[in-house]
């Protein structure tokens, strides 16, 4: 399980948590999200995401 941040608007994705509110089940790998899925924050399609892996995650 990895955590990512997109360079576009800073959208964050934690594979462990998924995004159940947006139809992505917890535990879904980033690679398994369909290509036509769009960023819920800025509308960029998945093909335009620039994901960087973040090695840490401090939960508020």
């Amino acid at each position, binding site marked *: 399980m990895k955590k990512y*941040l997109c*360079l576009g*608007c*800073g*959208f*964050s994705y934690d594979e462990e948590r998924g995004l159940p509110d947006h139809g992505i089940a917890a535990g879904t790998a980033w690679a398994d999200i369909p290509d036509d899925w769009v960023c819920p*924050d*800025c509308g960029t399609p998945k093909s335009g995401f*620039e994901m*960087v892996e*973040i090695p840490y*995650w*401090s*939960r*508020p």
Partner: protein
Amino acid sequence: MSVSFVLRAGERGFSRLVSSGPNASYISGHPDGLITRHSSFNFHEYQSGIAGFGCIRVFGDEVFSPGGTGYNMHPHHNFIISAFVLGGALTHVNTIGKVDELRAGDFYVFSAGAGGKHAELNIGQEDLRVLYLWTLPGQLMAPPSYLRGRFDAKANANRPVCLIGNESGALPIGQALKVSRLVTARNSTPVYRPSPARGVYVFVIEGEAKIADIVLGARDSMALTGEDRIEIAARSGSDVLLVETAL
């Protein structure tokens, strides 16, 4: 001396963004509005270069044409975005509630944290020249914040001055990061002392500087690691930005 990379001015990514066509909602201004962006690291359509260095992910050397050109209000999370104005005037508007105008020597630190939007505009009559630095934060989802500072080159010549970081007179930042600027009024060889556990990205804004026997001209840059002492042989009239980052 451990040199991670040397990046010459002409090797950087280059984007030409116009305010009409596919970017019309993203780029503001008159239909002839134009932003040019040289990227030191991979960003948007430029993906064939260096991905980043330490917590630095974006370093953009940008020029906005006059008359309202800029980036319309758009969202960010977590990234800490800093801008250093080199010429012209930058109007910065953010959802923390700040409307600010910055001129040459002024800089800001905008931490998007849990969520913040901003617009970056040139509403003046001359080109806006500005450097944008994006860094990953030390802690995610922090409350958004905005701070601004001013670098006085005349009062601080010939030595590196800390603009951002954990030093008195500098803007604090939620990351193991330190940004310093060196402007020389004569040929000088100051020494910059980083923490050896960190890396330093050196970007020559103007002039010429020699580090580790490598001569950097205007807009050339390099990255060093494992140093506790960096000697910068800078010609008179040089302007150098140093970004020290956790690796």
